[in-house]
């Protein structure tokens, strides 16, 4: 990478600003000061210095420890969701990430976690009349893989499987919704079924399922996975993807979270909750 010709050199004041920019950032006043200097030299040197700083940062990271598994799962789900949206976008979108339509998800800080009282307070506000399910016929094409609804029915028929009715809260998205869960403690498999839950825009928010394990701290229920409710769906059955082993499922809950879900829910939008047994 040889230099191709004489370059203009930044003066010391400009260099100090550029170095501060790539090490700790500039105040608005400093940024204005930099903006009035020679923009061509400044931007070129800024990229140089930023590259050197980033290379030092990589060298100084050595062999870094892996990211925590729960955080990685949340980020990966968020990116998968974004990637799927990109792949499904019309060709006119140019295959580029729609940066303006993707929101950053926020992993709720642990300090924001509340006691389980919040969950049960939400449950206390439920519409209690849960009157039967609108069951869709199970139709299977010859040779097709079983649908989630069929897998749910099969799991329900297996010995030891639990069926838990969840009650919808007063959350607007849950108005009139009916929710149940089938959970098999032995295989750690389960399905959640929703009727009448408001369709969601996956780029704005997603539903997330939670499992309260009697053997774990109740402030941190196990993440059961995120899912979407498409428009015009009479019934949605989704597999539960527990991110950790569940030793004694005591309750299930569904919340609305940012795309990709969160590691710890802030519990601002609980849409359904139900105790096992």
């Amino acid at each position, binding site marked *: *990478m*040889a*230099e*191709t010709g004489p*370059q203009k050199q930044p003066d*010391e004041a400009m260099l*100090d600003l550029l*170095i501060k920019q*790539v*090490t*700790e*950032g500039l*105040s608005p006043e400093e940024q204005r000061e930099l903006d009035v200097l020679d923009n061509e030299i400044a931007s*070129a*040197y800024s*990229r*140089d*210095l*930023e*590259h*050197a*700083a980033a*290379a*030092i*940062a*990589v*060298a*100084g*990271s*050595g*062999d*870094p*420890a*892996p*990211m*925590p598994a729960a*955080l*990685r799962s*949340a*980020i*990966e789900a*968020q*990116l*998968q969701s*974004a*990637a799927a949206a*990109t*792949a499904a976008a019309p060709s006119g979108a140019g*295959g580029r*990430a729609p*940066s303006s339509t*993707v929101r*950053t*998800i*926020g992993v*709720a*800080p*642990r*300090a924001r976690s509340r006691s389980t009282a919040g969950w049960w307070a939400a449950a206390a506000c439920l519409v209690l009349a849960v009157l039967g399910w609108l069951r869709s016929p199970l139709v299977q094409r010859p040779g097709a893989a079983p649908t989630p609804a069929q897998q749910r029915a099969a799991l329900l028929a297996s010995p030891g499987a639990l069926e838990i009715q969840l009650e919808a809260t007063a959350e607007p998205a849950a108005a009139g919704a009916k929710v149940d869960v089938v959970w098999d403690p032995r295989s750690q498999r389960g399905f959640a079924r929703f009727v009448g839950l408001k369709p969601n825009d996956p780029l704005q928010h997603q539903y997330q399922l939670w499992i309260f394990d009697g053997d774990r701290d109740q402030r941190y229920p196990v993440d059961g996975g995120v899912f979407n409710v498409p428009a015009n769906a009479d019934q949605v059955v989704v597999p539960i993807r527990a991110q950790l082993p569940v030793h004694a499922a005591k309750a299930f809950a569904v919340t609305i979270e940012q795309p990709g879900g969160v*590691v710890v829910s802030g519990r601002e939008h609980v849409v359904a909750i139900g105790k096992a047994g």
Partner: protein
Amino acid sequence: MSPLTVLQRMASGDPAAVRECMDRYGGLVWSLARRLTRTASDAEDAAQEIFLDIWRSAARFDASRGSDKVFVATIARRRLIDRMRKKSGEPPMEPPEALESIAWSDPANTPDIAIDAAQAARALEELRPEQRQVLELGLLHGFSQSEIASRLSMPLGTVKSLMRRGLLRVRELMNITVESAAGRPDG
């Protein structure tokens, strides 16, 4: 035609590339986020923002102009610096006992290290100890120049001078030029 890189495949929406991206850069991003944020929850939020930034910028990666890891670190540092500026009124971010924990890559014995990071590691070995020290404190621990001056009991002007000369020397030893730098992540 050379195969697409992980970043290019991620930009095109390949779901398998997302997992590879997390495998390849998750530790690096987490390491940078932990060093340059105040709390674990800050680091979690930052890591998520960084990966979204990487996803948005992935199509701009050009392997002929630098390594993917340094590209990712550039994006990560921009986001972290932006967050640091917004939180600049908050208390200092890192316990002093963590300052000795930098594990410098050995360019000769770390096969997976990016070539430009290996160049940077070699360049650092050429610096005067005090230049290297202020760069470590600033770039790897996220201390401001004022904080470094206070910590090392040095005049601020001395810290600025050491940092300026040190970083310019690294740039020179890495043979980065204005021409070659032209294709890195744009703002």
